[in-house]
C-alpha cells in the first residue's frame, strides 16, 4: 500500500482503466471505438456504462475482461495489468452463452472445475448453492434449451458467480428479455449484489435499468467513444424500477444523453 493510501485511507481501486484507446480497422474504414478512457471502480461498487449502440461500451468491457487488447493505455485489476482473461473477472454476455451439451448444473460447474484447490464434492456443493441463489434448484438437471430466456440468464449468472470472481462484468445481460422477467431479475441482482458484494460493471443502453442497479452511472458518447458525464445514484436499496424517485434520476440522465446525441449530429 502506498503512503498516500495509508494517509488518506482511500480504498484501493478494484479496476483502473488508464487512458485506454482502441480503434477497429477494416479495409473500408477505421472506427475510433474508445478515445482516452480513464475510469476507476472501487471494491464492491456497482457501475453502469450507458450509451447509444456503437459507443464502445461493450468494447471497454471486453478489454477489462481481457478478451480484447487496447491499442493504447492499460487496465489494472487489483494493481496488476490485465493481459488475458482471468477467473477473477467473469463475464455475463447478452446471449446466455450456456453450453447446450451440459445440463444446468454442468454449466454452473464448468468454471468451478477450472478453479484449483477445491474437491469435486465441494464444487458440487458450491454449484448447488448458486443454483439455489438464482432460484433454479428444481431445474439443475434440465437441458439448456428447456429453459426460458430469463432462466437461461439466471443460470448464466450462477455460472459467473460460482467461481467467486472479484469482478462481474455484465454485457447487456437482460436486453433480450421481456419487461416482466427483467424486473424480476433487477431485484434478484440487487439481492445477490447486497449479499455477495461483488464489484460489478454493467453495460446497458437502458437508462432506467442503469439507475435501478448502479451506484454510479457513466454516460458514453460515440464516434469516438468517450466518457461524457458521471452520475452518482444515491437512492436507497432495494430499488423499484417503477418508483418516482428513480424515474426522476433516469429523466435527468436521459436528457443528458439526448443532449450529447444532438451535439453529435450538429458536429
Amino acid at each position, binding site marked *: 500500500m502506498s503512503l498516500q493510501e495509508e494517509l488518506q485511507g482511500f480504498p484501493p481501486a478494484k479496476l483502473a482503466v488508464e487512458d485506454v484507446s482502441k480503434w477497429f480497422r477494416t479495409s473500408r474504414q477505421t472506427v475510433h471505438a474508445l478515445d482516452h478512457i480513464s475510469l476507476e471502480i472501487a471494491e464492491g461498487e456497482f457501475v453502469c456504462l450507458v450509451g447509444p449502440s456503437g459507443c464502445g461500451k461493450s468494447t471497454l468491457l471486453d478489454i477489462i*475482461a*481481457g*478478451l480484447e487488447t487496447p491499442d493504447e493505455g492499460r487496465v489494472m485489476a487489483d494493481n496488476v495489468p490485465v493481459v488475458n*482473461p*482471468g*477467473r477473477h*473477472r*467473469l*463475464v455475463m*454476455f447478452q*446471449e446466455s*452463452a450456456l*453450453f*447446450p*451439451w*451440459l445440463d444446468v448444473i454442468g454449466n454452473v460447474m*464448468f*468454471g468451478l472445475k*477450472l*478453479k484449483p484447490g477445491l474437491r469435486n464434492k465441494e464444487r458440487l456443493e458450491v454449484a448447488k448453492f448458486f443454483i439455489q441463489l438464482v432460484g433454479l434448484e428444481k431445474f439443475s438437471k434440465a*437441458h*439448456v*434449451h*428447456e429453459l426460458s430466456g430469463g432462466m437461461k440468464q439466471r443460470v448464466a449468472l450462477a*455460472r459467473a458467480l460460482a*467461481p467467486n470472481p472479484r469482478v462481474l462484468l455484465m454485457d447487456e445481460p437482460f436486453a433480450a428479455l421481456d419487461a416482466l422477467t427483467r424486473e424480476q431479475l433487477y431485484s434478484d441482482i440487487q439481492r445477490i449484489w447486497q449479499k455477495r458484494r461483488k464489484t460489478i460493471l454493467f453495460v446497458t443502453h437502458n437508462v432506467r435499468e442503469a439507475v435501478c442497479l448502479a451506484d454510479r452511472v457513466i454516460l458514453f458518447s460515440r464516434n469516438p467513444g468517450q466518457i461524457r458525464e458521471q452520475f452518482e445514484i444515491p437512492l436507497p436499496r432495494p430499488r423499484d424500477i417503477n418508483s418516482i424517485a428513480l424515474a426522476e434520476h433516469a429523466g435527468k440522465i436521459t436528457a443528458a444523453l439526448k443532449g450529447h446525441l444532438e451535439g453529435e449530429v450538429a458536429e
Partner: protein
Amino acid sequence: MRRLLLATLFFAVLVTGWHFLVKAGIYSPVLLPSPQSVGEYLAGAVRDGTLWQATAVTVRRLLVGYFIGILIGLPLGLFTSASKFMEDTIGVLALGLQTLPSVCWIPLALLWFGQTESAMLFVVVMGTVWSVVIATDTGVRNIPPIFARAAKTMGSTGLHKWTKVILPASLPFLVSGMKQGWAFAWRSLMAAEIYVTILTGFGLGHLLHYGRELNAMEQVIGVMLVIIIIGLLTDKILFSPVERFLHNRWGTGVR
C-alpha cells in the same frame, strides 16, 4: 409402432407392384426376376452360408476402413480448423480429394498394392478420410464464437478448451460428418469389391459382380437388397441413437 406398421405397409405395396409388373409379362424374366425368385435366391444363399460369409467379409472390411478413416480424418479436421495455414494447405487438399469419386482410387490402389486386402482397405480409407476432414473442419468453424469467449473468460485454454468446449460444441457437425463418412466408406468398398478380384475374401460386391457374370438377375437384385438393408440398419443402430441424444440435448430437430 404405428410408424413401423406404415413402413411395412409401404414396402408391401412396393413388392406387390413389382409382383404384378412381372406377372404382366412386359419384361423378360431374365431382366426382371419375380420377387419370389429373388426370395428363393436369398433363402438359398442364407442356407448354404454364402450370404453370411460375404456379409461378414464385407462388414469387417467396412468397419476397419471406416475406423481408420475416422482415426485419421477427425484429428486432421481439427488441425485444419485450428489455423489459417492448415486450412490453406491440408484443407484445400482435402476438399480436392473429397470431390474425387472413390472409384478413381482403384486403378492406383491396384498398381500400388496388387489384388490384395490392402488395396481394398486403401480405397475405403481414401473414400472416408476426406469427407470426415471436411465435416470436422466445417463443424469447428461453425461453433458460435460466444462459446469460445465464455470458456476463455472462465480460464479454459489449450487442451481443456479443445476437449471440453470445441469438441462437444461441434458434436452435431461431427456426427453428420461421421455419417457422411460412413456413406462414403460403403460406396468405396462396393466399388472396390466389384472391381478388385481377390481370393482372400468373397464380399457382397463380389457376389454382385458374379451375379452379373452369370446373368443371374435374381442374385444381383437379392444382393442389392442386402446392401440396402445393411445401410439402413447401420443408420438406425449406429447413428440414430446418437442423433436422438443430440436433438434431445440441443433442442433441435423438433417436429
